[in-house]
């Protein structure tokens, strides 16, 4: 297993959000600022890695008929952990992300990786899969969030970068802006892939 090519797979060729169209809800809802985006990305990555490892480890014990409910319970447990940890240590971020923390449970990426990868592969490779997919998710979030924060707020990671003369386009940090940002991002990626 080549870490570089794995990473490329997670970020580019099989990027869950930008290529497969999974995990869209949090990608749009929590990308109004880069900070929120990274918070969400890290939280999801943590759950992804943990659940991948556990599911991979238990893949021979869980009967295939009830595997989906079983996966969900495992995922939900880790989400609860993340929820509680964030509430304790990062209360502001926890508040900003709101219900999208418990909703990590139903993030298609996590269940999708569990079903497609972890339930069929060894623990170590499942962990790596979780890491690269999580990084891919985070990168996608940061990309969308950057566009929205820079245009919509004139700042990046909370730091004003475009000077006071810039009049921010409020639209970009509002819901329509999220849709427009991801639409143009996806189109741009399609264009780049097509030209390759």
């Amino acid at each position, binding site marked *: 297993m080549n870490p570089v090519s794995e990473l490329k797979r997670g970020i580019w060729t099989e990027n869950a959000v930008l290529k497969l169209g999974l995990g869209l809800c949090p990608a749009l809802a929590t990308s109004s600022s880069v900070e929120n985006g990274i918070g969400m990305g890290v939280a999801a990555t943590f759950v992804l890695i943990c659940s991948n490892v556990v599911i991979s480890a238990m893949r021979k014990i869980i009967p295939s008929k009830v595997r*989906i409910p079983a996966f969900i319970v495992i995922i939900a447990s880790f989400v*609860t952990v993340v929820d509680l940890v964030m509430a304790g240590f990062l209360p502001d971020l926890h508040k900003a992300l709101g219900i999208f923390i418990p909703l990590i*449970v139903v993030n298609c990426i996590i269940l999708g990786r569990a079903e497609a990868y972890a339930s069929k592969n060894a623990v170590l490779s499942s962990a790596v899969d979780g890491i690269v997919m999580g990084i891919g998710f985070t990168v996608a979030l940061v990309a969308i969030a950057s566009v929205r924060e820079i245009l919509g707020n004139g700042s990046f990671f909370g730091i004003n970068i475009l000077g006071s003369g810039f009049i921010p386009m409020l639209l970009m940090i509002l*819901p329509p802006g999220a849709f427009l940002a991801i*639409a143009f991002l996806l189109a741009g990626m399609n264009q780049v892939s097509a030209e390759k």
Partner: protein
Amino acid sequence: MTGFLIILVSSIFVNNFVLARFLGLCPFMGVSKKIDTAIGMGAAVTFVMAVAAMVTWVIQYFILAKFGIEYLQTIAFILVIASLVQLVEMVIQKTSPVLYQSLGIFLPLITTNCAVLGLAVLNIQVGYSFLESVIFAIGAALGFTLAMVLMAGIRERVDLGPVPKCFQGLPIAFLTAGLMSLAFMGFAGLVKG
């Protein structure tokens, strides 16, 4: 009575689940290619959401709160919703094969439809009463259906047109959703709810 109306209007138009809250985007994007399927999916979601709202409300207040284990909310809710969806799936498969065929793989998607879990969690967060929860669920589901049906109509048309290659598929769907979301901004402040 006006309270219920406000919840209903607010959840359908002002805080539309898809266009304003980003809940349930996966099925929204997936099932909004044809008006007929969109209506079917909308009906299924409405039913599941209404029942899920009732069941999760009961579980929250009669089990979790009683035992002081609210922190298990996420696990308990998702368990209930997953079972519920599977039940609905089985019932539809048996009773209406046509509907089952057209909804196809999207029924299981309702499980991972964050709109359903999101609704359950929101109900508890806002502190709605049982009846309010149900109204909210129906309103949210109707809003979801409305957005999906309108979207499906537009997509049927857009798909007949010469959309630039790199915009075909998801990008143009997102763009359309964005413009719909823009239009739905007009409802902002329509009711304070």
